[in-house]
């Protein structure tokens, strides 16, 4: 890597090291790469059973002196899923969405409102169609409903706002996230500020009779989330290398040029928004199923900002990067629960330092890193 600026930057060593690693990995024959990947996946599935000293030492507040390593891994997997969805919007299409928590909430509430016997929606349906008391929509049907509803809400939000310029989009989406939370808190059919309990998992409503997806053991939940992550990573990867992915790239780099080349920017931006939203919906649905209970204030604007931070710190546009960012930002606050008072302070400090020293993210996308370098070289002499 030759830069025109001769000034030695901190973290240059790290940058070269990670870059070299990526290059070496890409230079391997295909079967070796596949094998490495399979080994990594196997490791991920085995992770909750591994007691790596230092890494797994997690205190949880629910169990005195307890260890909830698998539960934390589940949260990490959900956050990785969120980061991958948001990466489609921010990293691939270049749209700054500060209201992603809104889609997360729509997904979570879809499962809660259709799946829980305690939700006002299910009770209304029971009365309307003369269903028995214990009836609710099955979990396996709730998930497609969640995906469909988030997809629709993505289109509803995107339709009027995607014609706006980037910065306006940021504030409007931030507003959207807040609106979802406030609406859910204030209307009656969503359970209001008290939230919804009794959200089902794959085995039905939460109870101690559930053999696999129980309340205590989080390992099956982690495996479920990990499987969804892998499937969706594969899907997004296919999308990224397709015509749609190239269109996103073109729109991100220069909207006007893309339009001249016959790529209709609005259409592809809307696609990115809707697909990103649907992924957020899936993660919200998983989250709600595991929690068994959700309430509106879990979906605040700070969470949205955390999501954006995951993507940007990890390296927008690179799926491995955003996954790493999500893992770190979900895991570190849990790991350092003992320093509960200080952890968000440290988190903020880490955000500033990482961005100042490594603005392209921890594992940058090659193209993004190149763009950043180009921009740095364009700096006029006056600055």
């Amino acid at each position, binding site marked *: 890597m030759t830069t025109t600026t001769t000034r030695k930057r901190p973290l240059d060593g790290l940058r070269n090291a990670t870059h070299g690693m990526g290059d070496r990995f890409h230079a391997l024959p295909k079967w070796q790469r596949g094998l490495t990947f399979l080994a990594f996946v196997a490791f991920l599935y085995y992770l909750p059973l591994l007691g790596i000293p230092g890494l797994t030492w997690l205190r949880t507040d629910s169990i005195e002196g307890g260890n909830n390593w698998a539960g934390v891994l589940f949260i990490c997997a959900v956050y990785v899923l969120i980061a991958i969805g948001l990466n489609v919007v*921010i990293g691939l299409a270049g749209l*700054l969405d500060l209201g992603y928590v809104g889609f997360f909430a729509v997904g979570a509430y879809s499962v809660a409102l259709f799946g829980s016997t305690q939700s006002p929606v299910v009770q209304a349906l029971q009365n309307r169609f003369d269903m028995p008391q214990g009836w609710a929509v099955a979990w396996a049907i709730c998930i497609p409903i969640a995906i469909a509803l988030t997809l629709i809400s993505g289109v509803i939000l995107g339709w*009027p*706002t995607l*014609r*706006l*310029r*980037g*910065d*306006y989009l*940021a*504030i*409007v989406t*931030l*507003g*959207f996230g*807040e*609106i979802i939370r*406030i*609406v859910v*808190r*204030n209307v009656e059919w969503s359970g209001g500020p008290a939230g919804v309990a009794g959200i089902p998992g794959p085995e039905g409503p939460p109870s101690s009779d559930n053999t696999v997806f129980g309340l205590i053991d989080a390992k099956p939940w982690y495996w479920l989330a990990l499987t969804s992550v892998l499937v969706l990573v594969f899907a997004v990867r296919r999308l990224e290398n397709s015509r749609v992915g190239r269109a996103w790239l073109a729109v991100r780099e220069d909207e006007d040029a893309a339009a001249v080349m016959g790529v209709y920017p609005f259409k592809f931006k809307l696609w990115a928004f809707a697909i990103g939203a649907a992924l957020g919906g899936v993660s919200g649905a998983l989250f709600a199923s595991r929690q068994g209970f959700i309430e509106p204030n879990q979906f605040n*604007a*700070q969470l949205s*900002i955390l999501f*954006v*931070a995951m993507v*940007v*710190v990890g390296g*927008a546009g690179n799926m491995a990067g955003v996954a790493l960012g999500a893992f770190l930002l979900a895991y570190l606050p849990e790991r350092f629960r003992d320093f509960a*008072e*200080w952890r*968000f*302070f440290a*988190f*903020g*400090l*880490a*955000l*500033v330092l990482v*961005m*100042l020293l490594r*603005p392209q993210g921890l594992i940058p996308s090659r193209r993004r890193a190149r*763009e*950043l370098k180009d*921009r*740095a070289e*364009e*700096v*006029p002499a*006056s*600055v």
Partner: protein
Amino acid sequence: MNFDELFGHLGQHTVDGLAKGSIYALVALGYTLVYGVLRLINFAHAEVFMVGTFTIVGVWSLMGATDSPPLGTLILLLVAGLLAAAAASGLTAVAVERIAYRRLRRMNAPPLIFLITAIGLSLVMSEAFGLWQGRLVVGMPTVLERRVVFSIAGTDVTNTQLLTVVAALIMMAGLDMFINRTRYGRGVRAVAQNPDTAALMGVNKDRVIALIFLLGGLLAGAAALLWAVRYGNTKFNVGFILGLKAFTAAVLGGIGNLRGALLGGLLLGVVEVYAATLTSSNWEDVAAFVVLVVVLLFRPTGLLGESLGRARA
């Protein structure tokens, strides 16, 4: 929907909305100044305001402020609070620029990176105050007891409302004069219009940028004083929602446009108070954002358009 209450006391709610909106407008100016010159959202501006409110808590408790002091002491408290808060907020804003932005500006980094450092820094600041001052609401003495000064056609105007609106208008007019009439203001407009050309004409860009951060900080400090007089309390995360609203106000009026920030702030305040009256305050935030979306749909650059430096320069 409580239409009777709203239309029965329309004047009253409008005055209250204007007072609320004045604080939004002062904070919005900080966003608009930075955006007008640098084209980036200074997310940490909310915390600049928060530092101002805590400075007032400190200064007032040092001076032994009590509830409703005599007039002489009151004026002294207000002036001391204003000076201290403006100084603290101004310095914080300049420090934010030095720490979070300058290095990235040199690299010509994309706006997203600025946003993340600003978010990080604002987290650091609010958490630092949360650790230092506790996470509960910090009260202040009610130095200015609410009292009706005069009534026009059945609309009562209280002293705090009057102080808030008048102070905000004076400061706004002062800033407008500064930007449009002085040598420094010309520099700011020049850099906003075209940084490279301004540099060729001998404008020191770094100094201008420090200046706009300082100005934004001073106004946020003034807003902090008005906040202290109006609400009489603060909290480590007081800036978050206020910053969000102020930024909304700036966008509503046309970001980068000083008069737009005033208009947007006042409008937002009035809309919120109306919505709060109609729906017993559950929906005021929704109303604010809905108005924003509707305005942006029909006027994508805000009510008055984006213009710092572009107009009459």
